[in-house]
Every structure is written in structure tokens, then in C-alpha cells.
């Protein structure tokens, strides 16, 4: 509870004594490149393979002749939009971006760079952390959309090239009984996960004490805590929004 209280105080400190808009604009753009653009390749690669594997495994399980083959792509679509794109990618995002944020802030802390900012009269949390959170909120939903598209494309290529499903059936299955709300739900999840991962990782990194060893410990703690928070939030959001 004490840790949670510190986290809330930390979040409050982000919005007091802010810098100018132009300062944040530049910082957010830099962070968008770091957390978003630099993650595109990894997200595209992982999600393409997840889509491909989901197609193969769904086909493997649907052996009954009375089940139409378009159900394969229908299942891939539902799994991708509802869970794989926002949640599994969140775990990868925590591993790649969350650990980097925590390590970056932890190193700044132990080398007194954060103290240097404070001595200059700059609110270090607002200056360092707020742009990272805003950049995550902007970029992670886009990465989720990309991951969803790549997963469906991966499933399409593997399904059609291996003869599991015809292109027409795959497209039909993707469009069959489509509920637009699932996309809205995935985007809501992506915003929540982006906030949780970035804020928790920054919190863990910002309060690092000690030396290089502790920076590593903070990064590990950032990833594990973020992933746990994402999984809990995933369940709560599903309970709240899928009724």
C-alpha cells in the first residue's frame, strides 16, 4: 500500500510545475520515435508469426467436416483483435519499452542527472516522465492496430499458401459476423495498457537507489509489475466492457 501511495504521489507530481508546451512537444516527438517507430519491426514480426501460428493451430483443431473452413479466419480475427494484439503485444511492449524506460531513468538517477535537473529548478518527473507516458499513449494503440493487421495478414499468407484455407474463405471468415465494438474494446485496452506500462516502468526506474546492479533490478521489477498490472487490467476490462 505504501508503494501504491508513492505511485499516486509520483503521478500527481507529473502535472505540477510543468514546462512550456514547446518543450514537451519536442520531448514527446523524440519519445514517439524511441517507443513507437523503433518498435515497428519487432511488433510486425511477432504479430505476423502469431497470426500465422494461430491459423495453423486453429485449422489443426477444427477437423470436423461440418465446420466450415472460414471459421478458421473468424477465430483468428476474434483472438487477434480481442487478445493477441492488445494484450500479448503489451507484454512485448513491457519487455522492450518498459525495461528501457526504467533502465534509462535508473541510470539517470544513480549518475545524479535527475538531481542536476532538480537543482536547476526543473520538475524532473514532469520533464522526464510525462513525455514518455504521452508518447506511449499515442504510439501503443497504433502499434496494436499494426499488430492486428500483421497478424491477420500472417494468417492469410500461411493459410492460403499451405492450402489450409482458400483466400475467399479467409476473407469471408474475417468479415463474417464482425462486431465493430471489439475494435473499440481493443483500443480502450491499448490505452490502459500503454498508461500502466509506461507509468509503472518510469516509477520503478525513477526511484532506483544504489548502482548498476539496482538499475538491472529496477528494470526487471518494471517488467514484472507492468505485466501483472496489464493482466489484472485485462481481466477487469473484459468483465466491465464485454457484457
Amino acid at each position: 500500500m505504501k508503494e501504491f501511495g508513492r505511485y499516486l504521489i509520483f503521478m500527481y507530481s507529473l502535472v505540477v510545475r510543468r514546462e512550456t508546451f514547446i518543450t514537451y512537444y519536442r520531448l514527446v516527438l523524440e519519445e514517439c520515435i524511441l517507443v513507437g517507430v523503433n518498435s515497428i519491426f519487432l511488433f510486425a514480426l511477432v504479430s505476423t508469426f502469431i497470426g500465422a501460428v494461430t491459423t495453423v493451430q486453429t485449422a489443426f483443431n477444427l477437423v470436423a467436416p461440418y465446420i466450415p473452413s472460414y471459421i478458421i479466419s473468424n477465430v483468428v480475427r476474434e483472438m487477434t483483435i480481442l487478445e493477441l494484439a492488445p494484450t500479448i503485444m503489451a507484454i512485448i511492449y513491457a519487455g522492450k519499452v518498459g525495461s528501457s524506460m526504467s533502465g534509462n531513468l535508473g541510470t539517470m538517477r544513480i549518475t545524479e542527472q535527475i538531481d542536476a535537473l532538480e537543482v536547476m529548478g526543473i520538475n524532473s518527473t514532469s520533464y522526464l516522465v510525462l513525455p514518455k507516458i504521452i508518447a506511449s499513449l499515442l504510439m501503443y494503440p497504433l502499434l496494436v492496430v499494426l499488430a492486428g493487421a500483421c497478424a491477420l495478414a500472417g494468417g492469410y499468407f500461411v493459410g492460403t499458401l499451405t492450402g489450409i484455407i482458400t483466400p475467399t474463405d479467409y476473407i469471408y471468415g474475417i468479415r463474417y459476423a464482425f462486431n465493430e465494438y471489439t475494435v473499440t474494446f481493443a483500443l480502450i485496452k491499448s490505452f490502459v495498457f500503454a498508461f500502466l506500462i509506461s507509468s509503472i516502468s518510469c516509477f520503478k526506474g525513477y526511484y532506483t537507489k544504489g548502482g548498476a546492479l539496482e538499475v538491472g533490478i529496477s528494470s526487471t521489477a518494471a517488467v514484472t509489475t507492468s505485466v501483472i498490472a496489464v493482466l489484472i487490467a485485462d481481466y477487469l476490462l473484459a468483465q466491465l466492457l464485454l457484457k
Partner: protein
Amino acid sequence: MIEIQNISKSFGDKQVLRNISGVFEKGKTNLIIGASGTGKSVLLKCIVGLIQPDTGTVFYDGRNFTDAGKDMKAEIRREIGMLFQGGALFDSKNVEQNVMFPLNVLTKMSPTDKIERVNFCLKRVGLENVNDKMPSEISGGMKKRVGIARAIVNNPNYLFCDEPNSGLDPQTAIVIDDLIKEITEEYEITTVVVSHDMNSVMGIGERILFLFQGEKIWEGTNKEIMTSGVKEFDNFVFSNKVMQNLKARE
């Protein structure tokens, strides 16, 4: 002038500072000295507000800094320049961007004026043509110089240096010490240096505050060191061979 009154600080059960009072004069190089672990750096951090003291008050030219609101604190901090032990340069920025940083966030100077000011400060600390170097590409002594340039770029009224010559060779250490003294006199600023190096004490220490186990034991000038008459202080000062020789000669 900076005045501290009855500063105390504990971490858990351990009391690190006990009722420390003192005055750091304007235009002089004021030193806080003592053995490792006596609370010098904690006292410095209490003075600049990085650590909140349990009791006591810090006054910057009569302005109560300890009890000031966030805006007032930010205003006073903008008059502070600080050189950290490791330089604390921002890893992601090159030398020029590091020195320019306070100007970017604290002033509305034009880009041309900023570049001019940065180059002036770098030249003042004896560094030229290193603007594009990253902190990882320069030596420890150069990092300290860049740190000093960054500390003075916004014309501070108060300069704080935490162990400015730690990890440096004796020759570079003297250069850094001399630079701090020159800048203090040139800009008439209040400088507070934390050190345990007797060469610094004898070289630049115009006013000296000696800490022993979290308490102020002695205060005076470097000329009064030989005749302090305080046992703990003499033990600290004359553990140094050079100081022993000086004492023997006297």
C-alpha cells in the same frame, strides 16, 4: 550569502547531521570538509534542497529556502549552479547541448545568443572544439569542466561543487580548484565546495566548515588551520603527509 541554521537530518535510526549552523560568504570559496561518511554531501544536498532536513533552515540572501513554496524554491534554484561528483552530464546530449540545457529550459534567449554564451563558458573553462563530443567521449577532467560550464552558463548567484576533484589526477585537480576559485571571484558568487582533499583546502578554502560524525567541530579560514587546537580536526588535517611536513616546518 547563504546561511544555515540548526540543520539536522536522520535516515531511519541513524542521525547523519546534528544541529549544523554556519554562513557561506559571497565572493568566497567556502569549503565543507571532513572524512568520508561524516555527512558533507548530505549537508550540501540539504542546502540545495535535494534532501529535506528534519529540522533547521537555509537562507539564500535572507530568503527562507527550506520553508518556501514550490514556486519560490524553483525561483531560487534557477539562481543555483551545481557541479556534481561525476559531472552528471546528460548522456543523450553532446557537450554543447549539455551546457546549453539550462538556457533552453530557463531562459528565452535567441539561438544565436545561446550558442555565443555556451562557447564563452566552454572557453572560460578551457575547452574549445569539443562542442560535438558526447560525454562518453571525453575524459573525467573534461567532464568536470563541462559540468562547471553548465553550472555557470545561466549566471548563477550560488555555485555548489560536490567533490570537484575526486577521481582526477593531482594536476587536473589543481586546475579544477583554481577554476572554481577564479570563477567565484570573477562573478562575485557564493561558492560552496564539499571536499576531503587537503590540497583543495589549502589552495582555495577561504572559509572552512569541518564536520566530524555529523557535527560541526570547527570553522575558520585556511590560515587558521595550523592553530585550530581541535583534536578531531587536527587528526583529520595532519593525517596527510604534506600537512605533517608543513606543520613540522612551522
